[in-house]
């Protein structure tokens, strides 16, 4: 188990055909892009889980009763 992930990352390092780690710019870009994508995905999924746990309890669940439907779409 321990070696599986590492092998998949480091497998192609020694031959010059490595795609991810051969060029530093590509490597750094992939790290930053991966971090950004992970944060978006993580926040979205945890927020969804949180809202499932707290369905009907938060302000966004009840504010439709109190907003004036006519012209106040932007005020919250």
């Amino acid at each position, binding site marked *: 188990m321990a070696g599986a992930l590492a092998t998949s990352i480091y497998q192609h390092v020694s031959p010059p055909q490595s795609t991810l780690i051969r060029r530093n710019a590509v490597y750094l870009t992939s790290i930053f892009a991966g971090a950004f994508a992970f944060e978006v995905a993580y926040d979205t999924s945890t927020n969804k889980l949180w809202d499932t746990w707290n369905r009907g*309890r938060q302000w966004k669940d009840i504010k439709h009763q109190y907003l004036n439907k006519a012209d106040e779409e932007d005020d919250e």
Partner: protein
Amino acid sequence: MLARTVLRSVPFRGLARQSLNKTSSRASSSAAGAESASSPFHLTLTASVATAIALGSATYLYGQEAFAMTPAEEGLHATQYPWEHAKWNKTFDHAALRRGFQVYREVCASCHSLTRVPWRSFVGVTHTVDEMKAFAEENEYDTEPNDQGEIEKRPGKLSDYIPAPYQNEEAARFANGGALPPDLSLIVKGRHGGCNYIFSLLTGYPDEPPAGASVQEGMNFNPYFPGTAIAMARVLFDGVVEYEDGTPATTSQMAKDVVEFLNWAAEPEMDDRKKMGFKAITLLTGLFALSVWVKRYKWAPVKTRKIVYSPPVPRR
């Protein structure tokens, strides 16, 4: 004589062992006290009694918990209620916060201030911007001094804080028979028992004080209040407010709503705090598992290495 009285009070086990070892002749010989040095039982007994007395007196002197107050002065311990918003993954029920604010405005606010809460903090939590602006404008606030140095009045803004019902502490005491209604901004954090205590206090007024309880003039009996004599009378009765969302305004419903509202006033960050804590703990758990895996990966060659010592074969 002393030996005999001591012997009489020897515990049963001591007696049994004594009679097992030697028969009645043993007791009579030691009662003579001739060879006490060769009688370790007496030494043991004396040492045990001395130790017991020392420990007992030390416990009596220093080991007891000291209570400065009688149970009545301590107040009845509040009942533990299963607050939904106190669970680790639950936010406040914002509909309850809105009802609780209504209870505060219509009932509590005539005596209790909420000075650390500005009008703006309700926006996006319990009320819309327009509702809160309307509430704020019902109150007058001092302006900055104008050119002549005079301070005028202006209607309230969202950034203003909720005005106190009394100008100062003296006015509050004077209007309430010497008792000061505490500020409710942080009352949930500021009282032992928190929500449980306030709910028990609000709903715990008996119809009449129990027999034998002395209640002074102008005071009310509440078993949950330390000292049992509280200046605040019972204020929550069924139907004293009318909820806009149709919830039956029973005493316990109003008390629950206003307690949850006061908990929000004391901890407005609770929703975000719990959410961020949940996210952080989940993420850190994953990172911890990753670090464990990296350690095992790095150590695998070391752990599986086999060192063999092959001694040099001596030449013949």
